């Protein structure tokens, strides 16, 4: 058993280097494909994070009636917070609302018109965050029925619209990723088949002298895994080289997004290595199969 593994590994290694041009071509294809896949994965993760961020921002805003007693407001707040659909309820009083508005204006570098005001035009409001932005329950109706609430902003439509888009983008992203995956599979299989075809004679001789299928198959599978492994290593190297300068530029603009680069890196490493090796093995398997079936 051990000697079989050693034999297969040794032959895989020899096979890789004997037909170096072909092997390197396969590896290069693998690298290109893995880079592509990584790119898609990063973009998709970024998109997802962005979408989640947008979804989190979606909340129900209930303006409180001018002069409603604090006790009544607190009662509403507690009641709504107890509803199963609700994640949190924050009370923003009129003063705080104006402060936030001013801050936002300043952040955006816009004219602060509120300094010209003699009284605060903003009402206090209850800001409700939902656990799942898709599940409203009867939060809106319940708020609307309360006497201390002036009006509930019609955010449902907006939420629906945002959710439609985010879902669409997400589905689209996964679809594209799946498509790219299929292409990668197809192409890697073809490339490795090219390498196997070049060794048809060797396979024929092996069959004639009575080599079992395992002895014929596994060296090729290890060779495919080798192609995948080397390809993955090169890809990760290139990604590491490219990540730093790219990241520096990106963070300036996307720091608003809660992207955890560490976790992304780990996920990406796993994905690249698993995909590379998986594709290499699968490609070899499929390519050798047609010879063994004869």
């Amino acid at each position: 058993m051990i000697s079989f593994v050693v034999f297969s590994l040794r032959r895989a290694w020899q096979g890789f280097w004997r037909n170096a041009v072909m092997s390197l071509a396969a590896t290069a294809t693998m690298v290109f494909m893995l880079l592509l896949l990584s790119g898609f994965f990063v973009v998709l993760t970024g998109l997802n994070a962005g979408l989640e961020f947008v979804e989190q921002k979606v909340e129900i805003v209930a303006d409180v009636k001018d002069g409603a007693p604090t006790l009544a407001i607190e009662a509403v707040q507690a009641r709504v917070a107890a509803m199963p659909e609700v994640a949190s309820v924050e009370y923003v009083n009129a003063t705080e609302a104006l402060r936030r508005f001013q801050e936002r204006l300043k952040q955006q570098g816009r004219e602060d018109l509120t300094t010209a005001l003699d009284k605060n035009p903003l009402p206090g409001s209850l800001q409700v965050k939902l656990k799942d932005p898709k599940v409203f329950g009867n939060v809106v109706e319940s708020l609307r029925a309360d006497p201390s609430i002036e009006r509930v902003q019609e955010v449902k439509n907006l939420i629906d619209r945002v959710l439609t888009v985010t879902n669409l983008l997400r589905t689209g992203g996964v679809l594209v990723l799946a498509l790219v995956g299929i292409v990668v599979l197809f192409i890697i299989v073809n490339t490795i088949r090219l390498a196997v075809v070049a060794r048809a004679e060797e396979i024929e001789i092996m069959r004639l002298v009575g080599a079992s299928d395992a002895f014929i198959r596994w060296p090729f599978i290890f060779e495919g895994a080798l192609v995948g492994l080397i390809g993955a290593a090169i890809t990760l190297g290139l990604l590491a080289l490219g990540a730093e300068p790219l990241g520096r530029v990106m963070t300036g603009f996307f720091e608003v997004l809660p992207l955890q680069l560490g976790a992304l890196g780990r996920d990406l490493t796993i994905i690249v290595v698993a995909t590379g090796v998986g594709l290499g093995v699968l490609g070899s398997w499929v390519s050798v199969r047609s010879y063994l079936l004869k």
Partner: protein
Amino acid sequence: MTLAPLRAAARSHRQRPVGLAPTESPVDGAVLVLHDVTKAYPNGNVALRDVDLVVPEGDFVFLVGPSGAGKSTLIKLIIRDEIATTGAVILDGQDLARLARRQVPKVRRKIGIIFQDFKLLPTKTVRENVAFALEVTGTPSREIGPAVDRVLALVGLTAQARQLPGTLSGGEQQRTAIARALVHDPRMIIADEPTGNLDPLISWEILQLLLRINELGVTVLMATHNAEIVTALRKRVVALEDGRIIRDEEAAAYHRED
């Protein structure tokens, strides 16, 4: 010859009229038994019809016949490269038609196969080409070296062990192929026109080698067009024509002698 009675039995079996019920017991002592074998290729070509053949252990058989008679097809059935359409091909007691696919490699190791075009790997030396047959069948590496040396000595290639096939004469290449076929001690050597690419002198050399191997107890079945050799050696001759065995004689010539 201790094999004579067996061979007589074999012959009587062969002379059984075609079409009888299949014998239940394979002929004792026979390495190879073909019983009522027919082979039709997928495209409809019928290459063999009702072939009965018994090859006792230690026999030396020439398979002759015009082009297209079915010699190569017969050999492909024996090495289980093709499967008989009907009938049984029994090698060393195992019916190749009923063999599970994963059993095939084991059966192949019982025979050594030689072709007209040598089928050597051009990037491996003589030694590596022979060792290859053992490596890929899972022989422990410490056994490989001695076995290869022994068989290279047998075919007389010890001096050329480190050369690549491209630097060898045709005869030396064929001897390398024979060494490879012999290296895991097969019970039978199957050769399909082994001298087809060789000049007369080297052809004789190869035949001498096969005869010596046969004397060591290995059964030899050889398809050939080389009338001179077949006639000179006076061995058993099985003649095919149109997929049928039309002649099966001991100590015979290439052509019918009546």
